[in-house]
């Protein structure tokens, strides 16, 4: 099967404007729709101390109007053109996208250019969006079981620097403290064209799209892209442990985090963990589902894989391999972890069998194609690959790259999931106290 995986081609062309904006074009004739995404090279890892949650709050503000568009007009124009939109803040980037009928391409480009050039940030909109973001946090974190698990609380255990360890949704105190001037400085530091990738994917003509990009984005002046610091820090040298009291969870849960190789400079090493995650926990035939859920019932749910938020290949270094489980309160977390570590140790000692490797590969590739069948995800994936790796082509190349990863490489990846050096977050139901 290895040599016979069907292919999907996501061909791209690229150019750069004088202001530094990187542009990616990915035509898909006949799609009828076109996706437009702007990825800015700033995520919550870069927000300053005392301003937790600021990158995400700022993302909300970018929808609140710009020089040519009063408040609410952005939403209205996208939707009344038949399109959908969203924005999302990640560890290392923030993206904005719309998918519109092909006839609305120029309008979509205009909207993105207008807010890259002159967003209208006011005290009133800031205060309104602090309220909306606070409601988002109550909805997604505070008022539900396992809210923010494990992406909010695990980094605080595994990492020691503020950048890597803090809560990207932010504390209410910090959100309330944000000022309009903070916003102005953040915008000028990070939202400059030289710090962004524009991706257009779908039903487009290359020549026409190139003209439209120059016409709408060409006169945006900006500052040079900020120099991105290294966020590297030492790996844990022991088991680091913390517990989080959950007011709503009926069952305990655990998350174990191990450091991963640098996804950009050690891509091949990183990809071994992507396949490893699949053979550990993807589907009934995977080792952990079979051994820990089906055969012994130690956990009701278990999962494992590269990436803390948004799946594998969604951030730069440092990134995390996460093992997570929800388990019965009669079963100690340690028992679940030991059982999982046994499976990991077996893979480290003997490697996967050939069939297991082919299964993990086919499953991953199939899911990759499925996710990227939709224009919205494809536009976002291409932009993220270009921003993080400088190579949108990676999306097309991943199946071939993954198919050359050997059982030995999987085994040595499993060998780095050291049972004596990891971070452990235990979620304790408040009712159990």
């Amino acid at each position, binding site marked *: 099967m290895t040599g016979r995986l069907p292919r999907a081609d996501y061909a791209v062309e690229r150019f750069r404007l004088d202001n530094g904006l990187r542009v990616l074009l990915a035509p898909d004739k006949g799609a009828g729709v076109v996706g437009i995404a702007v990825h800015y090279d700033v995520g919550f890892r870069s927000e300053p101390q005392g301003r937790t949650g600021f990158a995400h709050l700022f993302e909300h503000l970018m929808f609140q109007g710009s*020089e040519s568009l009063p408040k609410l007009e952005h939403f209205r124009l996208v939707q009344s053109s038949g399109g959908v939109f969203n924005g999302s803040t990640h560890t290392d980037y923030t993206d904005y996208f719309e998918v519109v009928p092909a006839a609305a391409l120029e309008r979509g480009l205009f909207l993105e250019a207008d807010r890259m050039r002159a967003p209208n940030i006011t005290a009133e909109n800031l205060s309104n969006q602090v309220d909306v973001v606070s409601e988002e946090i109550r909805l997604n974190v505070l*008022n539900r079981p396992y809210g923010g698990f494990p992406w909010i609380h695990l980094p605080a255990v595994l990492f020691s620097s503020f950048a890597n360890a803090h809560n990207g949704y932010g504390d209410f105190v910090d959100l309330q403290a944000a000022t309009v001037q903070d916003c102005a400085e953040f915008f000028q530091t990070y939202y400059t064209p030289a710090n962004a990738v524009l991706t257009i994917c779908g039903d487009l003509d290359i020549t026409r799209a190139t003209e439209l990009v120059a016409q709408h984005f060409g006169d945006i002046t900006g500052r040079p892209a900020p120099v991105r610091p290294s966020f590297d820090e030492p790996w844990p040298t022991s088991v680091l442990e913390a517990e989080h009291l959950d007011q709503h969870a009926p069952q305990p849960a655990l998350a174990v985090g191990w450091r991963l190789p640098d996804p950009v400079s050690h891509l091949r090493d990183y990809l071994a963990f992507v396949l490893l995650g699949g053979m550990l926990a993807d589907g009934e*035939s995977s080792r952990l589902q079979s051994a820990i859920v089906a055969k012994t019932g130690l956990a009701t749910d278990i999962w494992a894989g590269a990436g803390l938020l948004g799946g594998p290949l969604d951030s730069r270094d440092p990134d995390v391999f996460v093992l997570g489980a929800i388990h019965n309160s009669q079963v100690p977390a340690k028992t679940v972890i030991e059982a999982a570590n046994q499976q990991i140790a077996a893979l480290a000692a003997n490697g996967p069998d050939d069939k297991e490797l082919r299964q993990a590969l086919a499953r991953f590739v199939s899911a990759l194609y499925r996710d990227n*069948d939709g224009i919205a995800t494809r536009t976002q994936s291409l932009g993220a690959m270009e921003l993080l790796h400088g190579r949108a082509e990676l999306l097309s190349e991943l199946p071939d790259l993954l198919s050359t990863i050997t059982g030995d490489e999987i085994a040595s990846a499993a060998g780095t999931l050291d049972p004596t050096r990891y971070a452990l977050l235990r979620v304790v139901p408040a009712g159990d106290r």
Partner: protein
Amino acid sequence: MAGRTTAGEIPLAPDVTNQPPAFRTAQEIARTVIGPRPIPPLAKTGRIRTPALARAVLPTGLQVVAVRKPRSPLVEVRLRIPFGGTSKVHAARAEMLSATVLLGTGSRTREQVDADLALVGGHLDASVDPQRLSVTGSVLSTGLPVLLEVLADCLTDPAFRRNDVLGERDRLVAHLSIAATQPSSVAHRYLQQRRFGDHPAAWDMPDAELVGSVGVAAVRGLHSRAVLPAGSTLVLVGDLSPTRTIDAAAETLGGWVGASGKATRPLSAPPPVVGGDLLAHHRPGAVQSQLRLSAAAVPRADPRYPAFQLANLIYGGYFSSRLVENIRESKGYTYSARSSLEFWPGTAAVTIAFDTTTESTAPALLEARYELGRLSLLPPTAEEMDAARNYALGTLATSLSTQAGLASMLSVLAGSGLDETWLAEHPARLAALTVQEVADAARDLLAPAHFTGIVVGDLGVLEPALRSLGDVQLA
């Protein structure tokens, strides 16, 4: 040449050419020399080709629909089996059946079913609700024959091994206990009770105690009585040849026959949703409240449906709707508010849903009712109508542009006895609507008096404000 100096010289002015300009204020950022620019018009819309489709009803009564959509080298699979019941015991058994039907066959262990699918890049998942049992999957296009064979094996010869059934029962009970702590699940259960009472349509979530007493024999019995091809629909969309795929499905699934002469049973029509007081449920210490309002609507096949669709969009069906602009963008009461149309056999409803802080709950309810009253009494503007229409048309095209979107849509339509013809004709129906038709629909659909609903929150704090608004009673 400014700033060019040689060693030892003192420059006249600092070299600014390589320095970033000083930070501007937010006000300065928002203005450019050119000023506001005109919004570009829309270009001409190109034609989208209709994908090739084949359809057949097999001798067993299974309807198969195959569509060629080759953008990605995959095939999306949707099997929909009408699965109506009349008792809470049925709901509990159905949930157990759905949790175990893919966990092994007479010739395959639980792990083998999954491994055979994994090897061809495939997966299958089963789920159930009061209307249907559904098996959803996808596979690399080269692996479709394997996926169909595994699916046929699970449908005709599921193992229901004791260990697997009892193990899944424990997991299901655990999942139900988690769902019981999810505010959205809790609110949904109360809403279903409020609008459907004891009708089986209300039992989206089975009773954990009843699930706990479902044994292997009950699951087997339900399988042989209700997992039947006659009345079911299999939709396959992707990189495939429609006619050859129909032949392959006929051959592989031909052995799925079921008890002779028996057909699947659709859910009986739930009672229409009738207006009434909001029932308030207490959740001590909640930091947010859930509000759900619902009223009767019309099914997709009804000639008034397109107008109802636009009236719903204008009210709260998308981001630039009146409800979202009011309670989120203007007042910050909520992160997300939406109103949507839902369908059961013979009945339909509009459902409005949002969560808000405890302090904002009563004010948000007031605004939601105000917007209902306003749109039901006064016609929307032509601009609002065009925006909603374009949104409906554009998002329909976007969702049908993916293999998964098209497969799911065809499967859902099959559940209402509709097909691709309805889909193909829908844009013309939307295009033909007048403001008057949408105003008439809004009058019928959105009249505040037609609504019932629930609120869940900390009534210790909420009660006085809710009482003063009125039309609310304590549960």
